[in-house]
């Protein structure tokens, strides 16, 4: 089913209509997590460990419970026992058991009649700790004397003889790496470090939960995936999933951080203890930073062999990543396959370990693992290009993966668009701008798998011929608009006649979250299938009316029409006419589609950044920024550009200033936006975008996911640009002014 011949011959796909939720969002009417309230509602607050690692010896809530208006307190003792694996991890993270494992780990929760009262009560809950030695740095956590965070936590994959904090191990590759290095003209190695960063969504986690004595509950929650919330909350509380109904709110950003639970089940546990009164829990920003799911920190060794003409002969990486005090949270399984995914290299060896540390339970963050891997590999590639005086785009073109390339992680690529992004970057005017003193340019490419996943969509025709589409993937960046466009395109009706709703868990089969850049791809694909099903039914209704065979009816321009002259002569029967009569012609008309969506198309992008560095203070100013990425097909180009720009901005933040700073006491030092420095408006230039379209053959409109790849190239691209501007190469993120200035001074002294 080759879709390469797809042209821009669509009626709606590729246009930029106003998004359906735009009005609500510019008037303040859109309801986010903290905007729900219910009669009789209580407010909750959480008691959190001030220690990075401590035994919990005693919890005394009697003073809190003695306050007028305090209705319930829960601790781990209120949760069921006997959980295993990730369910146990989730429960352990919801409320600490024997030990607090990181600064901010929840220890108890309280519900009261007002938010202030709940906070007052939380301060009155006494917790006695026995402080234990802690470790927060990934390399320190592997050293012989490092405190063991969980005895016996290592899984099947870890070879004998590693530190008990090493809990997962992975290794793969192909070809003869030693022979590859021997064939190279230069072989270079480097060690690179990235600090943990936070997704930094502006909306703190918020949830209203209600559960009666009968164990039936409801939740209203901001999340990327409410079926995940349902499954995880049910597991943590030991209740049946079907007894829990979860309604997603509008979501104020997620970027991976809202694909799991942190405190949501506490609302249900408190509600049940408080006689079924609904309970609202809204995190503070400090709680978000201390106790949700930042990304992993990484320490990475890279070795690359290159010929003088830029041909890469072999590559090797060893990644060490910590994802907190819980097994399975670091993205080693994603980082390794991403490391060399952009290239066609005959010999590769990948190895990684996951290490426990006294930090919060990491969650996904936009292309999990890929930015770190790219920082290491693309940085060393750039260093070698400079050493050999080769153009970084030419070297990437020479080694670029394309259709038929055996990927770094094994499978053969089908049609992909990396080469097209490199060509477009090379041709862009930004690449030809001459730079001034203290300025530098950096180039890097990036990759993300993209994802399909479990998807259930339902579509119903209205009596007036308008169409409602029920989807289960919360809309974070405009996906309702793109799904409405594809549905309207498929049915042949105006965009305005399609309304797409994100519906609750009671209304559809299981949907995975909006993650893995899948919402427009997977829910869109399922919506198209559901529309086709409804079209088939509408053709049947018309056929019955006309008393001809259904096969003799075709659907065109929003109406059933006789398929050719032999079918008979009837005027087109529009969707509005069919809808108006459907009660009498067989009942409601709907379509639905349930799938574990396949046909995913891999995503590649190339970024070009120009910076100027103040040589006396080490501060980097981003002068201009270019994102080129393959979208497959851009359904709503404005929101595709938005994903590119947003990804780049997050990557710029990660590269320059964002980091988790732990003190020697193991406490997080920067728990507010004042010191967790995400880019502000005056930090950034306009972000230029080029949408490359190499349609994905696995999607009816050629869609590839566009959400994640954009965060990957900025890290190495900025390191390259700073290296050109200053002569100093930074191998550790963030490239904050003190580090850049120190590197400049070291370079001068050398």
């Amino acid at each position, binding site marked *: 089913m080759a879709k390469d011949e797809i042209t821009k011959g669509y009626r709606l796909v590729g246009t*930029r209509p*106003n*998004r359906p*939720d*735009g*009005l*609500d*969002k*510019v*008037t*303040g*009417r*859109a*309801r*986010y997590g*903290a*905007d729900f*309230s219910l009669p009789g509602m209580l407010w909750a607050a959480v008691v959190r460990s001030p220690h990075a690692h401590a035994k919990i010896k005693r919890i005394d809530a009697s003073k809190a419970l003695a306050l007028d208006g305090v209705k319930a307190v829960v601790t781990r003792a209120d949760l069921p026992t006997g959980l295993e694996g990730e369910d146990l991890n989730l429960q352990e993270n919801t409320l600490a058991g024997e030990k607090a494992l990181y600064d901010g780990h929840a220890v108890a929760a309280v519900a009261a009649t*007002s*938010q*202030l009262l709940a906070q007052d009560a939380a301060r009155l809950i006494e917790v006695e700790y026995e402080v234990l030695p802690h470790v927060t740095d990934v390399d320190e956590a592997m050293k012989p004397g490092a405190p063991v965070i969980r005895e016996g936590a290592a899984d099947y994959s870890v070879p004998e003889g590693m530190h008990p904090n090493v809990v997962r191990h992975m290794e793969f590759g192909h070809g003869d790496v030693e022979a590859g290095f021997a064939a190279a003209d230069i072989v270079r190695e480097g060690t690179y470090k990235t600090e943990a960063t936070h*997704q*930094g*969504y*502006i*909306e*703190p986690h918020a949830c209203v939960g209600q559960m009666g004595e009968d164990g039936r509950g409801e939740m209203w929650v901001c999340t990327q995936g409410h079926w995940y919330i349902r499954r995880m909350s049910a597991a943590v509380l030991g209740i049946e999933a079907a007894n829990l109904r979860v309604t997603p709110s*509008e*979501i*104020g*950003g*997620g*970027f991976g951080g809202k694909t799991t639970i942190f405190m949501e089940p506490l609302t249900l546990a408190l509600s049940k203890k408080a006689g079924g009164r609904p309970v609202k829990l*809204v995190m*503070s*920003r400090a709680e978000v930073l201390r106790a949700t799911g930042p990304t992993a920190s990484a320490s990475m060794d890279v070795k690359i062999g290159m010929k003088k003409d830029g041909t890469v002969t072999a590559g090797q990486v060893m990644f060490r990543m910590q994802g907190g005090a819980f097994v399975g949270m670091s993205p080693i399984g994603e980082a390794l396959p991403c490391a060399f995914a952009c290239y066609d290299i005959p010999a590769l060896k990948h190895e990684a370990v996951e290490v426990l540390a006294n930090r919060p339970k990491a969650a996904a963050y936009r292309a999990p693992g890929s930015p770190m891997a790219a920082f290491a590999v693309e940085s060393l590639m750039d260093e070698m290009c400079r050493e050999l005086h080769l153009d970084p785009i030419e070297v990437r073109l020479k080694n670029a993966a394309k259709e038929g390339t055996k990927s770094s992680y094994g499978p053969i690529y089908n049609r992909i668009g990396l080469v097209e992004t490199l060509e477009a970057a090379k041709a862009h005017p930004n690449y030809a701008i001459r730079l001034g003193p203290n300025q530098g340019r950096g180039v890097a490419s990036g990759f993300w798998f993209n994802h399909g996943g479990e998807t259930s969509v339902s579509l119903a025709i209205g009596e007036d011929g308008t169409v409602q589409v029920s989807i289960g993937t919360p809309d*974070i*960046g*405009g996906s309702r608009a793109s799904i409405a466009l594809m549905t309207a395109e498929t049915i042949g009706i105006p965009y305005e006649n399609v309304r797409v709703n994100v519906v609750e868990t009671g209304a559809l089969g299981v949907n995975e979250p909006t993650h893995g850049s899948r919402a427009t791809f997977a829910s869109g694909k399922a919506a198209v299938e559901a529309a086709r099903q409804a079209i088939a039914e509408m053709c049947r209704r018309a056929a019955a009316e006309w008393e001809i065979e259904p096969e003799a009816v075709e659907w065109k321009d929003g109406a059933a029409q006789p398929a050719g002259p032999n079918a008979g002569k009837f005027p087109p029967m529009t969707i509005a006419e069919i809808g108006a009569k459907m009660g009498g012609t067989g009942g409601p008309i709907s379509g639905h589609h349930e799938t574990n969506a396949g046909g995913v198309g891999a995503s590649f992008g190339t970024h070009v950044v120009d910076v100027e560095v103040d040589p006396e203070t080490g501060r980097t100013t981003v002068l201009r920024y270019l994102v080129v990425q393959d979208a497959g097909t851009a359904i*709503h180009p*404005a*929101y595709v*550009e*938005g994903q590119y*720009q*947003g990804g*780049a*901005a*997050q990557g710029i933040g990660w590269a320059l200033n964002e980091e988790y700073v732990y003190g020697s006491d193991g406490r997080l030092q920067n728990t*507010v*936006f*004042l010191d967790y420095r*995400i*880019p*502000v*408006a*005056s930090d*950034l230039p*306009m*972000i230029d975008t080029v949408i490359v379209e190499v349609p994905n053959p696995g999607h009816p409109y050629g869609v590839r996911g566009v959400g994640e790849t954009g965060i990957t190239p900025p890290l190495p691209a900025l390191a390259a640009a700073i290296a050109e501007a200053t002569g100093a190469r930074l191998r550790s993120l963030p490239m904050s002014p003190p580090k850049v200035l120190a590197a400049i001074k070291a370079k001068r002294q050398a």
Partner: protein
Amino acid sequence: MKKVHVTTNVNGDQVEFLADPRETLLDCLRNHLDLTGTKEGCGTGDCGACSVTLDGTLVCSCLVLGVEAEGKKIETIEGMASDGELHPLQRKFIEHAALQCGFCTPGILVAAKSLLDTNPDPSESEIRFWLAGNLCRCTGYDKIVRAVQDAAAEMRGAA
């Protein structure tokens, strides 16, 4: 904790509420007046999601106590469209896709309106620095700045 009776004016309406003196104006708008369009992103004045104007001055409502609102005039996002007519900024934000998740949008709109009220023809740099206290994590600010520029141009044209 004894509550304080506060009489104030929000979006042209006289309103009253009882505030715990520790409650912020943001808490009072959201929890006592059900004006949930004003958002809390940080509670420390660092994100701007709670932007409102207080007697015409742009402030973070998380950095104002509810009791301080006595006798003041407050404007929130809910008052920005008048008589069912969107403010040009609101329209341009939709047209330019200047919002993704939309959580920061009310605060940014209130702040941008305050800018255009004082400077009808701001440069890109003036827009960026004026809005530096309004964090957006989704857009990279590009489309936001363009939407403000376009709204300003339209408003100048109309004036």
